[in-house]
């Protein structure tokens, strides 16, 4: 059985991606992925985009508490 991939939102932080998906850069080239679960930056300030590097905390990034996915 192949499990479906999931993208999960974490409050005031990144999106965690689990499962088999290709992450492509702006030119359509695959981004190297070295771990099973990755965090995608959604605050815009990470130095290792598309991945999160924890800097969202330093800029006090806040997600919408009333939004559909926090």
């Amino acid at each position: 059985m192949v499990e479906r991939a999931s993208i999960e939102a974490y409050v005031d932080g990144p999106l965690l991606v689990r499962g088999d998906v290709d992450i492509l850069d702006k030119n359509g080239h695959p981004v190297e992925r070295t771990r099973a679960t990755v965090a995608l930056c959604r605050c815009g300030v990470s130095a290792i985009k598309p991945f999160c590097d924890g800097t969202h905390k330093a800029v006090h990034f806040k997600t919408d508490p009333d939004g559909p996915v926090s």
Partner: protein
Amino acid sequence: MYSPELVRPVRFIAPPFTDRGQVSRHLLHALATPVALADDELESFQAALASALASTTDIVRDDDLQLTLFVLYGLAYGSVVDCDERWEWNTALIAGRASIESHFEEHLRAVVPQPELPASTAEAVAAALFELTSHETGPSLARFLAKKATVEQLREFLVQRSIYTLKEADPHSWAIPRLTGRPKAALVEIQADEYGGGRPERMHAAIFARTMRGLGLDSRYAAYVDNVPAVTLASMNMMSMFGLNRRLRGAIVGHLAAFEMTSSIPNRHYGNGFRRLDFGPDVTLYFDEHVEADAVHEQIAGRDLAGALAEDQPTLLADIMFGASACLTVDGWASETILEAWTSHRSSLRVPLQGFSETGMR
């Protein structure tokens, strides 16, 4: 009793470090002996331990007691003292360990600030842990490493870290069978990544060993025990105590959450320090890996591990927050000790490293 002639003399390799007082001396002597022949040494060990515990004033900085505890935990981990493996469950040593643990835990509970308790929901606990860890003082050491540290200081830093990092993730793994359901799945998700996701060469401890070798250091476990101060051993011992006592599973979970939450940003600074002195990707991979990995782990550790555990077992909430605060406090002391030494142009080590020439090392 066996007579010595009946027991084939077994030769064990002498440990790569020396004792720091009566307690660790008797322990190391006992471990050099087969279990059945060590009664006298054990008696001396117990007597020395009782008197050391009665007189110690700061167990975190007590060299003899921290080394003793480190060696005792080493019987469960391996790679510390080569000895008869039956020593691991020897009742006299287990009793000795329990008596040091009881003083150590009591001391930590007295000196570590107990944070205010959030509601027992996953989101509230994650938010409280992120808030608590946002005040940590560690980055000053990270900034020093990024901007000012010399090659000797980088080497000292790796030596200090090696006590934990060559066994990276192991102390927290003791908690896996002690959890159930969501927190267990979360811990396994983090630890699987720590252990390289099935690729031994990507195990964090193995990547760190390559970094050590890249600076000409010995990456065998326990090679630098003599060099590190008691507080560095205390940091590792605290994790082992939290991990090996099921009763303290809340504390080891909180510890891991705080550890992950204070890792990504400092690791970027560490990596920059090594790049500044022209070390290449073989050396900096460890730090770069942690910038990305721990940004994932901190999310899982906050909400799905610590948060879910608090939701499932609200009685563990206080220990989750205590474990997080203990991580920040003790690792804060360890970092301060290093930084204080360096800013006053001293070695941060108990025994400075010898025999490095700074030419041709990179």
